[in-house]
């Protein structure tokens, strides 16, 4: 469980996250909102790239904000980025193994853990082939494998389906849904693909202009009129 209390982030003159309090109970949780709502900034707070002006983030009883940024991976925080960040120079195996190396997981289990993560995401490629030679879909899967290897506790997925055609999003959705059960991790999924969010997430929180406008079971949240208004706009605003 992740508890966010009164979180506020300010950049000179802009408040991308404004007094947000929200709870991510477990399983796969969606985080949605129009462009500029503060979703990625929220991920950056969790990763330690952005220091909040106020508020606390407690993950499984521990104060996440107190940890040095690079130590959060060892604690069990994993994330993917909007732009794909698998390391082109390294092989698929090494890409996943390097996360395992810095996760604090047992060295003797590395080979098995890495290969099982690659198998888990359904990547049918030679693990020793360089990531630079893979296509967009396969790179996305390598990133998901990187996100689940080495005892993850919280997995942040930032638009994992961006740029993928529908049938491949279907496969990705099946993989994401299995993460909590298989690895015992809490997943927070940011995406604009509502089909993906409804398929994967039991609960969803919605941000708009840095404020939390709804949170709860996904189906209810997506029917919420504030949410519909945030996405489609209203006549008054026009």
């Amino acid at each position, binding site marked *: 469980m992740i508890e966010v209390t009164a979180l506020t982030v300010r950049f000179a003159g802009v408040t991308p996250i404004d007094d947000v309090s929200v709870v991510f109970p477990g399983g796969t949780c969606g985080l949605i909102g129009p462009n500029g709502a503060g979703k990625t900034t929220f991920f950056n707070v969790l*990763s330690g790239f952005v220091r909040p002006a106020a508020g606390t983030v407690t993950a499984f009883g521990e104060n996440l904000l107190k940890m040095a940024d690079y130590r959060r991976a060892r604690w069990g925080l994993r994330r993917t980025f909007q732009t794909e960040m698998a390391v082109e*120079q*390294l092989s698929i195996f090494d890409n996943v193994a390097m996360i395992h*190396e*810095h996760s604090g997981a047992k060295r003797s289990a590395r080979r098995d853990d890495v290969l099982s993560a690659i198998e888990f995401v359904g990547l049918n490629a*030679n693990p020793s082939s360089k990531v630079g030679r893979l296509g967009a879909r396969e790179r996305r899967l390598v990133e998901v494998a990187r996100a689940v290897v080495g005892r993850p506790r919280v997995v942040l997925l930032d638009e994992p389906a961006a740029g993928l055609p529908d049938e491949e999003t279907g496969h990705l959705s099946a993989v994401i849904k299995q993460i909590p059960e298989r690895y015992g991790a809490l997943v927070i999924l940011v995406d604009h693909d509502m089909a993906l969010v409804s398929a994967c997430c039991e609960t969803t929180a919605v941000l708009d202009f840095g404020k939390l406008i709804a949170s709860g079971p996904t189906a209810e949240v997506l029917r919420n009129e504030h949410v519909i208004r945030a996405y489609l706009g209203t006549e008054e605003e026009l």
Partner: protein
Amino acid sequence: MSPLSAYLQRGVAVRATVAVALLAVALFVLPHTAGADWITTFTSVAIYSVVALGFGILYGRVGMISLGQVALLTIGCWIGTRFAYATSLPFPFLLLLAGGITCVIGVLVGLPALRLSGLYLALITLMFAGATTVFLSVNDFPSGNNGFLGKASTGALTTSTPPVRRPSWAVADVAYYRYTVIVCAILFLLALVHVSTKPGRAWATIRESEPAAIAAGVNITLYKLWAFALASFVTGVAGCLLAAQVGVPRAITFQTQDSLTLAATALIGGIFSIWGAILAGVFNQLLPFLFQAQWGLNPNFLLIIFGAGLLQVLLTAPGGLVDQFPKDMASLARLIFSGFRKLPRARGTEK
């Protein structure tokens, strides 16, 4: 997963065989076929390929551009000379001392790299190279006297200045060439072990993206300084090897621009590959020798060739010659084979 391990082992086996074969040629064939001046040049090739290796680790692996690598070589050379005169330590200890102290200096130079990157880091390291040149032009190399600088009070080197000693069993040029090749091979092995294990993977991740590396749990400060430490250590050891090779090193032979030429040749050879560093050593030392001593050409023409080569690398072949040459050969082979295949078919249609 046996296909993976089979593939990995086959790749490693092929590369190891090529490396051992090259080493055998360097150790046993070249000394018998090459003349004395060639052997001296090959010794320099080995030494400068280690410097290029250091540049390749920093830029090719971590993405930090350092234009002060020949300055670190000079410092290793200076420290080696100083300790050779001051102590009677066995030669391998001189190598380790020179490497160790250069490593500390290199890490200090690398500290700005934690905040700066790209052009700014390049400028800082180039200024460091300039400062080293200034220090040397004032103080020159030690010449066997006392004091921190170990310099004769008159300041001038004389013909009585004893040369820096070589290992007792490698005093002759050919023996010292073999010694140098073996030490350089060990340094290459050290780099290879780093690159193919945890630090190498962490460096590749930093090069790809620093935020992604932090999110992956990589302590960026530690691994960047580690890269500077490794690159400076191997360069310092190479500097000590150079001191004993030239015997009496002189400040005039080390110029700031050497660091730039080295960066150019390292890029032309290929910074992403360990093999590229060897090629860079050949470009940096063998070509000037060929131009000057063998062909009677002005070695300054080389700067034009390096400039053109650098442009070619930056524009079309980021992996350098070591990456591009096999690709070009493969294309050439395909071209020839497709030509052959067309011939019989053409005859067949005639019938």
